[in-house]
């Protein structure tokens, strides 16, 4: 429910052409130079990163795009099927959650490059949760799972999973477990998130958790990684606790390719880091630390809101990206002020294996208070970054960047990169 003026402005500008406002030549690109950029309200645009041009913009077909308010995101999760090529999307079937706080979702296959709907399958059970979503290209299977919650009717176990076959793109088909009458599969044990991935070792890595082939799982305890040599290396990060105790804190930040990235000295409002931050890269498969690097840059762990964490590991596990920021004081009204991180646009790249500095990339203009990492390209060559006004594309190997001015009201939440 919005007033006419605001809505008109928002809607009319949402589909205007984007503008490349600053550009250097990005030439060192792999094949995935097409980016489909999605926002929460179900709009998208398609850009050719190599050419720096927009080639398509509109509403995601099948999404509940339209005027008026909505809850959550109208396109929740996306996955690329590079072989077809197609995109699979989980979308809500209603714009708003119902009186019971539940909403029905559907899975849609979208043909590239025009995103036309090929098939759609309604998930039978409504949920109060955003589904987890994974695509297994080898088996042509989509997994959509919901964690259990007290309010959700989905399951008596730890979660509920639907598996859909994508053998026929035009007919997404639920795969019931052998002998089962319904397509639901009750999960007993870890409910994998959308960030979970299969490692070549056969194990599943899900953020800071390892799931073994036998279903057992454990979470890496970061404190156990602070060996005495590493403590010495990070000595300047040592803080003094309330009991006058000296300590170094270390927290999980990111995971990729069987490696986990941790930060030492969480720089948080009210308890700033004494001196920069530490990077620790851990080989979770072989259970060994492969680098520990002291940096002059402050770092944040996940604080529940976009913009954190401020360090990232590329999908191939080889590059660590550190976002530089400074604290700025904002008027919070009522005589109060709050501290917010102002992202300067400086991205500092480190080699994950050696911890050595690789290069520094400058995004321009500075992303500012709304700056946030969005995603890497799957081949780890590009990094996508956003602010309230701009989408930035950074070539991690060459250091070049392009800046794309976003339509007003468009805030990228998902990006799929493809060859086409």
């Amino acid at each position, binding site marked *: 429910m919005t*007033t006419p003026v605001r809505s008109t402005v928002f809607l009319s500008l949402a589909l205007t052409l984007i503008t490349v406002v600053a550009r250097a030549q990005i030439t060192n690109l792999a094949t995935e130079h097409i980016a489909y950029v999605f926002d*929460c309200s179900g709009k998208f645009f398609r850009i050719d990163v190599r050419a720096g041009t927009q080639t398509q913009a509109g509403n995601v077909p099948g999404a509940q795009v339209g005027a008026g308010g909505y809850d959550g995101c109208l396109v929740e999760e996306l996955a690329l099927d590079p072989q077809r090529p197609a995109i699979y999307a989980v979308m809500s079937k209603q714009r708003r959650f119902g009186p019971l706080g539940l909403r029905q979702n559907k899975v849609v296959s979208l043909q590239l490059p025009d995103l036309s709907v090929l098939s759609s399958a309604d998930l039978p059970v409504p949920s109060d949760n955003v589904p987890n979503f994974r695509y297994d290209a080898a088996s042509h299977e989509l997994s959509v799972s919901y964690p259990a919650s007290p309010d959700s009717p989905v399951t008596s176990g730890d*979660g509920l999973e639907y598996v859909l076959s994508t053998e026929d793109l035009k007919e997404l088909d639920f795969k019931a477990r052998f002998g089962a009458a319904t397509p639901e599969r009750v999960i007993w044990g870890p409910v994998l998130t959308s960030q979970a991935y299969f490692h070549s070792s056969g194990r599943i890595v899900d953020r800071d958790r390892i799931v073994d082939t036998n279903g057992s799982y454990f979470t890496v305890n970061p404190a156990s990684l602070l060996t005495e040599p590493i403590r010495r290396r990070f000595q300047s990060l040592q803080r003094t606790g309330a009991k006058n105790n000296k300590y170094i*804190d270390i*927290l999980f930040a990111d995971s990729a390719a069987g490696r986990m990235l941790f930060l030492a000295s969480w720089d948080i409002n009210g308890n700033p880091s004494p001196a920069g931050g530490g990077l620790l890269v851990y080989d979770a498969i072989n259970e060994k630390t492969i680098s520990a690097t002291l940096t002059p840059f402050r770092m944040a762990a996940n604080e529940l809101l976009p913009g954190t964490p401020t360090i990232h590991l590329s999908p191939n596990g080889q590059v660590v990206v550190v976002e530089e920021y400074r604290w700025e004081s904002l008027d919070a009204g009522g005589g109060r002020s709050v501290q917010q991180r102002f992202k300067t646009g400086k991205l500092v790249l480190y080699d994950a294996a050696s911890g050595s500095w690789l290069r520094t990339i400058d995004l321009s203009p500075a992303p500012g208070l709304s700056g946030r990492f969005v995603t890497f390209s799957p081949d780890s060559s590009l990094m996508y970054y956003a602010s309230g006004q701009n989408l930035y594309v950074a070539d991690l190997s060459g250091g070049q960047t392009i800046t794309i001015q976003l339509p007003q009201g*468009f805030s990228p939440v998902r990006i799929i990169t493809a060859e086409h």
Partner: protein
Amino acid sequence: MSKGNPSIQITLVSPPTNNQYLITPTPSMPVIQATAAVINATPDPTDTTTFTWYAALKILENGGSAGAQEDDYDKLGFIVETGPAVQTKGSQPYTLTFVDQKIFLGGELTLTVTATLANGQVLTATTPANLAALTTTPLEIYGTNPQRSAIQSYIISNVPSSGYSTLQSTNAADALQRMACEESGPAPKGQTQFSGVPGGTGPPIVASDNGIGIMQVTVTRFTPDYFVTNPGIVFNWQTNITSGLSYFQEKARTAYNYPGSLRTSTSMTNMNSYQYWITNTVNVARAAAQLAPITILPAPNFTNSGNIGSNPPNQLLEDAVRGYNGFSGTYTPQFGGVLHEFVPNTAYLVNPNTPLSTLSTDAKDVWMRVCSTDGGNGALFGNEYSATCAGIRPAYVNNIAANTAQCPAGANGN
């Protein structure tokens, strides 16, 4: 002197100014009456003629933008047949009645009357072409806005004395009056159902997002078409308010349930649970500092006293107001995947000076307002954020707080 062919002439009883019948601010439907006469026939057969009357309403979209975003009403009009045919004899007046006597309907009205003469000739006449008063102006049924004081009184009297989900009725009613101001703006309108100013007349407000009337009850292709299923939302300002209040009640319940949903987000197999984040992020940091772990899930019930904009804030009220506009946006980890007005304050939870004993009750400190500072953009953070997030409130909640219940100068920054 030549005579024309026999035809029917329609005469409005008590014709309205500019052919516009008006729903009163009470509200009540206008009395619409007409008579028919056969003209150009000698002798005049009117007194012995039976006239058969039909009425149809064409509801035209008022306002709203064309294009892909427009869901329902990019059509010429929705024709409402107002009831079965009615017969009158001679100069007996026809009175427009609806099948549902309590219904409120408006739009462009067309009266059609037919008669069969003694010689078998069938005559048909319609408005406005065959009105006695020569005019091409169609008949319309518009509405009259009540004065703002009537709107305010109606809201106050229709918020239950028990309030909504522990929200006090006075605070809820105050916010709803401000919302009525904001929703049906911009100035000089506000707290208006029809396109005129308070006390003025016009067709119903239908915004570009198909929000209708005072409370901007929104119709999309994913909701029932209120023009068909509940036209009172369109033409009866009281029904519109009642519908808006009902919707707000639902959002207040969602806001009320949110802290509880975090407190029961206890799964450690679900990495997106609140428990997992407390255990593997907050408590990890606390353990490093040799601080005692947080053993509860800190999500106290929202504060619930004070009008919107008060300091400290009425968190429940502000989250409900946000929900009325849409809990759009998400954050990670996804505790349900919907962005509320407040999230747990990470900095407070890891702060060494935070007393653990009050984490279950200290809503003022445990909850942190979401502020995107996102330059006015940001479906990620909700589609209604201000350019600067000044006052650290999203624009919609900000706007409501900036209004007053009296709506003295209309919406948007009075």
